[in-house]
């Protein structure tokens, strides 16, 4: 239960510019790996396709994990700037 006198602090943090650049690179990498995986499977290059699927999963998982971890409530984030 909270009291009417409790004080809450909402901190809005702006992600640094390089975060978005990194996100762009991550997205580009994902698109290229997925496209290669699909194309390799279509061209019956199954080993290449398997490697690409695994790589895509690892990169996707890494990205999602990083995003969620950085977005955790209450976690101090030394890289983000407080507005």
């Amino acid at each position: 239960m909270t009291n009417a006198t409790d004080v809450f602090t909402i901190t809005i943090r702006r992600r640094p510019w390089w975060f978005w650049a990194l996100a762009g690179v991550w997205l580009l990498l994902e698109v290229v790996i997925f496209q290669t995986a699909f194309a390799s499977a279509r061209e019956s290059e199954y080993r290449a396709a398997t490697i690409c699927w695994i790589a895509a999963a690892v990169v996707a998982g890494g990205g999602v994990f990083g995003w969620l971890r950085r977005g955790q409530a209450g976690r101090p984030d030394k890289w983000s700037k407080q507005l």
Partner: protein
Amino acid sequence: MEGIRKQIGRRALLKASGFAAASGALGSLWALAAGGSANARKRARWIRIVDRPTLGETTADYKRFSGNDIFTIYRQLKDQRDGAGSFEAEQASKAKRLATWIKEKKPGYSLPDRQLSEGAFTVMHSAKPGVGLLAWTRTSVRAPEEMATPRYTASPEEMANTVKAAARLYGAGLVGIAPMNEAYVSLLVPHREQPRKDSSGKDTSQKTQHPMVQRQEGGHPSCEHGKDQPPAVQPPQDRDIVFEDTDVPSVTDTKFVIPRKMKWVVAIAIPMDLDLLSRAPTALGDTAAALGYSHSAFVVASLAVFIRGLGYEAIPCVNDTAQSIPFAVDAGIGELSRLNKLVTPEFGAGVRLCKVFTDMPMAYDKPVDFGLVEFCKTCKKCAEACPSRALSFDDEPSFKTRGPWNNPGHKAWFEDSYKCYQYWQKTGTGCGICLASCPYTKGDQAWIHEAVKATASIAPATDGVFRAMDDAFGYGKQRDLEQWWTKDRSGRRG
């Protein structure tokens, strides 16, 4: 000061990074995007147009080739090296082995596999130099003068584009125009009529022309044109190829005559079916070559009729009459590789070459450089993959030939065709492992391959990494032989 730094730090950096990212993306797009339309197929910008080929420089020793290719001289060499009668013994052993494989339904050599290849060869079997599809004279087309029309004229560039567009429609993968070089033209057309026997030993050689070809020789069935044509020329028997100051090409009992006014060569590359080529060396793999040859015959025959219809002379050739590779190099279709064969930027080594000689004036294309020679120096994958060790492992190309099948006087990585052809006798079919294993022989669907080729063309230091990645990703390995017959064919060819 602090404020200014803050302003610069944030805005300028954001702008700079945005600009850098945009430049990088545009640069990549520029590298990957299509370039000029000189080849009637837009080519990537990383394929540089150069004045001289990167490999293939010639000396004064470079002369017209005698036609001593391995198919012509293997029997003689085999008997010389392994004793009289060894060729016949080898052939008998091969026939027995093939018959057993068919009975055992060995994957890649079963009866359907074998007959698939025979079926794919059908058009090519009907295409002999100077006759039928590859006739040197006008047969089934009306010349413009017969229709009271002047022949087609335009600027050399337009003429070239017209011919390239037609060739692409008929099935060419790449087309280029090279100047005629008499040194590339063979001295003779060898007679290579091999007797073909069935399992009972009965001679089943194709003595008669294919019905389609007979109709063409007598003119198109739907019109009267061609009625007055001379009778079909008989298949050649080691006839000389000569250049003469005549207006029209001709074929006689003793020679093939190319008019000196034919100063243009339309060099054509026909892409092979990669899915079949990746099943070499089997009858299935052989089907890729068979189909490539038949497509070649169709394309050059159609293009020759088209050019004649525009009012010019045309001589269609597949592997016969002249060396296709130097013309293709001069026309900018690709570069000479460690295979001592052409590798194209688009289809790698998975192409069959053919050409049409003509007197139709067209703008010439120039050779190209896409970093292949440097890549070949590092890669050597084809030489390692070759089961007969016929390909060179030398770091640098040289002028040193390896047998009478090589034409001396030009720089190359020369191959041992004897070892190669001897391996063909073991497999009972053609091979093609070297073509399939080349890292440039890839499908065109994955974007990353284009980026890799673009990088290799400008940064040879990366060649070793790309070769290692090619191995790691499993490229160049033989595909499942039985799976070919059951695979889903509802989509694109792969």
